[in-house]
């Protein structure tokens, strides 16, 4: 009965008014929900690169303050090669460096390159804190970063963040997980 009453005999102006009211109410509810979030969305929008920059700054600053403890070869040159599938496959196989997965952790759990460590771009600061000891022993250790595929920018952003922290050999596998799985190469999963 109520349903019929609401939906019958309506005018177009009534519909338009209803739509406007719905939009206004949605806007208000959206703001209230954002206020309740642990990390509300700021205004204006901060892009991925800027957000990563903000989370890397304290890490880089902390590392510089303890730089004396970590010996850095003065001649260490910055190497930022892109790896082809074949090169990346070799990198993984030989274990000559550390493989880093820049995708969100859920995707890492579902499948990642063998021995890869999770370092998601979105939660870089938290994930890096867990890997810090392992990685900062040697800042010249070769690192290879990948994300979903050729169109994702996360591996490149993580590469820049790692360089800012002081790592000298950070390469990107641009083909990413799409190319790796398309080639039917081995993968590891987390329970």
């Amino acid at each position, binding site marked *: 009965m109520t349903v019929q009453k609401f939906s019958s005999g309506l005018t177009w102006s009534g*519909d338009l008014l209803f739509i406007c009211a*719905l*939009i206004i109410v*949605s806007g208000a509810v959206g703001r209230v929900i954002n206020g309740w979030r642990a990390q509300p969305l700021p205004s*204006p929008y901060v*892009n991925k690169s800027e957000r990563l920059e903000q989370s890397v700054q304290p890490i880089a600053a902390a590392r510089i303050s303890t730089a004396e403890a970590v010996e850095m070869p003065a001649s260490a040159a910055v190497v930022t090669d892109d790896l082809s599938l074949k090169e990346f496959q070799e990198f993984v196989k030989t274990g000559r460096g550390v493989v880093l997965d820049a995708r969100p952790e859920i995707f890492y759990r579902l499948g990642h390159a063998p021995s890869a460590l999770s370092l998601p771009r*979105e939660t870089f600061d938290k994930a890096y804190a867990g890997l810090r000891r392992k990685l900062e022993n040697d800042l010249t250790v070769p690192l290879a970063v990948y994300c979903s595929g050729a*169109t994702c920018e996360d591996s490149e952003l993580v590469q820049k963040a790692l360089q800012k922290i002081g790592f000298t050999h950070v390469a990107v596998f641009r083909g990413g997980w799409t190319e790796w799985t398309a080639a039917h190469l081995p993968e590891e999963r987390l329970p």
Partner: protein
Amino acid sequence: MNERVLKGTEVISRVCLGTVFGYAGALKLRDPQPFADSIHSFALIPNTWINPVALDLPVLEIFLGLLLLLGLRKRACACLAATLSIIFAVALAQALMRGLPVDCGCFGAGAASAWKTPLALARDIGLTALAIFVARHVTERNV
């Protein structure tokens, strides 16, 4: 066409629209940051508008989905669903034409991919057709 068939089609269309909008809104509301990133990737609106849209649109989609499922204000909701679907389709089409690597962000976080955008565009066209059908049926039958 048989009135019963038309009525049945309207109900199915409305339930489909309501489910898709409600589900899409709920996923985006849970984590609005990836959705804001998706909006940014379309390079269509100024940065000051991105987060308000990322916060408000999911709530609007949830309300719209619920109203469509409940059958309240059917014509207004169908018109709004059609308008939103057309806006999404236009955004996706311009991204395809400009060769932008966008993630539609329709159902929360995801990675941009070459095949997902045309698929999302086709889905939006389908949703527009369903919404127009519901709006027309409600208007003609005044139900």
